[in-house]
């Protein structure tokens, strides 16, 4: 595995996405710094997934998305890894994890057998993800956490410059979440890709992200995690702060999250 640092930055300038006459995103200016973990937070319908899709070039947008690559690290399109929020596929699909890896890495059909190189690459990536035991399992029989690991292993196989994760721990139990985050931290410190993470879970965000972008159709605020996740900013982003905090404390539940964040700043206690 190459250890060279990825010196990439993603610059988003005045990005807007309209669909059906509605502004889904308007006037977004944001930077993703190289090698850092940036979290994208915001209420449902804030356009978080849309922003990821725009970066992937899967929705039409106006404005600019620039991928900057340091000269000494070569030219060409940056490699973007993507782990979608959930896969709505046929759970009975006759497809093992190795098949799934081979589908995206070899040209000739997998029905003629997985190539030696694609099998070796699959095994290596799965081993790194601590998921070697899943290689021969049908994709549809994996638990949510196992599937996330497989998708992450596949995304990391190609040594991405930027990794986009959409709600990586939704539908994963607490233990699975812990495992996933540890693995992600480990991989991230090993290869220093830039990571853009969409998450509802502010405890995950405050533990793992270097920077936070708060989004609600436009940028509410962005900056270093501890400075950004303030009650005032969260209130601005989620509409009424009174709801989030007073109710959150009263009944142990945030209105917006199952696990309401402790007020930022009190983290690590």
């Amino acid at each position: 595995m190459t250890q060279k640092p990825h010196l990439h930055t993603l610059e988003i300038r005045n990005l807007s996405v309209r669909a059906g006459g509605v502004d889904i995103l308007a006037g977004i200016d944001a930077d993703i710094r190289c090698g850092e973990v940036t979290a994208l937070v915001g209420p449902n319908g804030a356009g978080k997934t849309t922003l990821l899709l725009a970066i992937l070039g899967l929705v039409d947008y106006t404005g600019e998305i620039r991928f900057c690559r340091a000269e000494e690290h070569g030219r060409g399109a940056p490699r973007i890894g993507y782990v979608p929020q959930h896969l709505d596929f046929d759970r009975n699909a006759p497809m093992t994890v190795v098949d799934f890896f081979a589908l995206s890495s070899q040209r000739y059909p997998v029905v003629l057998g997985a190539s030696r190189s694609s099998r070796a690459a699959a095994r290596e990536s799965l081993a790194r993800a601590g998921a070697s035991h899943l290689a021969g399992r049908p994709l549809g029989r994996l638990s949510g956490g196992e599937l996330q690991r497989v998708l992450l292993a596949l995304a990391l196989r190609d040594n991405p410059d930027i990794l986009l994760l959409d709600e990586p721990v939704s539908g994963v139990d607490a233990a699975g979440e812990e495992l996933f985050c540890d693995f992600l931290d480990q991989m991230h410190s090993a290869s220093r890709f830039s990571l853009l993470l969409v998450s509802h879970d502010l405890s995950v965000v405050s533990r793992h992200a270097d920077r936070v972008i708060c989004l609600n159709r436009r940028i509410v605020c962005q900056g270093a995690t501890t400075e950004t996740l303030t009650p005032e900013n969260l209130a601005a982003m989620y509409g009424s702060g009174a709801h989030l905090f007073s109710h959150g404390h009263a009944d142990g539940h945030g209105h917006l999250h199952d696990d309401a964040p402790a007020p930022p700043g009190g983290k690590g206690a």
Partner: protein
Amino acid sequence: MDRLLPFAFAEPGFMKRAILAMLFIAPTAAAVGVPLVHFRMAFFSDAIGHSAFTGVALGVLLGIHPVVTMVAFGLFVAWAITLVKGRTDLSADTVIGVFFSTVIALGIAVISAQKGLTRNLQSFLYGDLLAVSEAEVVWLACLFLGVGVYLYLAFNRLMLLGVHEGFARSRGVPVRALEISFALVVALVVTAAIRAVGILLVTALLVIPAAAARNAARGTAQAFWGAVAVSLVSGLAGIAASYSLDTATGATVVLFASAFFAATAVARRVLRLA
């Protein structure tokens, strides 16, 4: 040829042509059926099959060979459904359902205005494998090769697309081109298979072998070759059985495939419980 198929029932020329036709169309339909089932497109192929009914009626009305209009109309409907599906928020079922009914209504309207057309339709509704011409066998052979090349190039990307569209796109899969091309390939295979099993049963030839193989397969390769094997065995057994039982060939072939499906479904359940 005699050495290739040394069966008494294969003696008449029409039997040899029927068997050859089946050897080409059965694996082609089953192979296309694997990604088709993966995409949950069984209803789509049914709609294309039924559009053939209208295609034939239009051919007779316009004085063009009905097989030509059947294929052309099938391709048109496949293209139209795929296009509309990609541009509305309606679910695929709804779009296909609307096209399905419209096309059938058009066919019935044409037929009811043209007396004497019904007899012509019989062989399309139920299939008439024993009446295939040499030209048709050649067409099926070309289709067999063409679909083979298509799947060689597109199979992996089709399967990836079936898992998650955004994910497939992020890995460089050209989604629109793939959807349109697959719809057209399905239309070609469906209209060709109508000759063997008829409009009413054509979907079965694509879907049942793939479904049966899925019951037993562990990976993609097993599912694919299993489907091809089920379709070949059902096709040949169906021809032989229909010859001795004097039943409709297409229906007999489909019944054999259904038996494979039932057996694998039961086996799967038993093995999972065990």
